[in-house]
């Protein structure tokens, strides 16, 4: 997968699995995940699970910062940064 593919996959996953139905039409990669309440403790865990299973990237605890989860674009950027560091 390319970085662009990863970003698209992340945005699609968040929209379809984590964003409340009434907000899905408005959701894009710049929608604020925390202000909208999309990410809580459970949905963050689910997102990290998706990143590991589908994108093959392990996100360490130190990366669980609001700046990295501000929107789908920042999550994708974090995944891009971490990808070379994840054991193959």
């Amino acid at each position, binding site marked *: 997968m390319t970085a662009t593919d990863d970003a698209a996959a992340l945005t699609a996953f968040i929209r379809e699995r984590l964003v409340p139905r009434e907000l899905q039409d408005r959701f894009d990669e710049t929608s604020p995940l925390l202000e909208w*309440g999309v990410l809580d403790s*459970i949905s963050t865990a689910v997102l990290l699970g998706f990143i590991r299973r589908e994108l093959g990237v392990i996100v360490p*605890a130190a990366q669980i910062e609001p700046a990295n989860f501000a929107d789908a674009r920042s999550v994708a950027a974090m995944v891009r940064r971490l990808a070379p560091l994840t054991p193959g």
Partner: protein
Amino acid sequence: MRTPGTYVRSIGVHLPPVTAIGTAITSGRYPADEAERFGLGGAAVAGEVPAPELALRAARHAFERSGGLLPADLDLLLYADVWHQGPAGWQPQYYLQQHLTGGDVLAIELRHGCCGLFSALEVAASYLRADAARHAALLVGADNHGTPLVDRWRMFAGTVMGDAGCALLVTTDGGIAEVLSVSLTTLCEAEPVNDGGVPMFPPDATVGRPLDFVARNRDFRERLMAQGGTSLLLGVQRTLMELIDQTLAEAGIALPDVARVAFPHGRRDDLENGAVAWLGLTLADTTWEYGASIGHLGVSDQFVALDHLLATGALAAGDHVLLIGLGAGITLAAAVLRILDLPREDT
């Protein structure tokens, strides 16, 4: 916290009969579609047996399996619980003293939510190490959720509440498992998570106010949203990951060295797609299936599940188990144990 020289001599469990989820569906207490979606089997239901009696039966079971340890050998008794135990102005640990241990042991009720047995383990490990003359502690956890003010079938989304008594005999000189590390921490910014926005005074039970965690957690979330969003809840995930990393490191192992992971008995999809996925596990690596057959036991989930793993031959000597706790506070807990031997008998 590293816990050198701390062992679980034996585990005792008193699990009352399970009421099948089908029975709850037939009687209109649980929706059929949710039971299928969440894979629930039922809840252990103690009926009119008080929680301290569940604890007493579990404690006797632990002594029966201990290879000769006696109540008189105890240096500490910690009684962990979540829900109301009996009359106001009375405490449940004294019931165990009256009927099992006698009065010459320091006995304390430990109310630390669903992580109570983890905290009891940490306290006991420290207490036993503080004086070379101390050798044994009895840790019990018990709850009976079949009371007014709560509905065991609808307290949480995706899981049901069960009842159980669980007892750990913790010693300094060997047993079925070595306790390698125990850690707890609290994300106290999330302290209101279960308060529902209701007044602290007078307390709920004194005015007959019911408890519904679904409604209370929804209320907490609405308050967070009104304050700008859910950033605070990211901290729960980060803290849990840090705690697991720390606890494994203190045990001197890594996650691939762990044979089984016991989580609180909770909702299948959250666990499977969340913690299990980011840890790189599958549900089969956990105790979820057993938990779904008996319900969330309040304070005892991980330790009753550990007993089940031992009793069913799912663990062998040398295996490591990782126990993970989550409770009010929001408190997070983890422990690593290494199995040394199987229980001496299964009575």
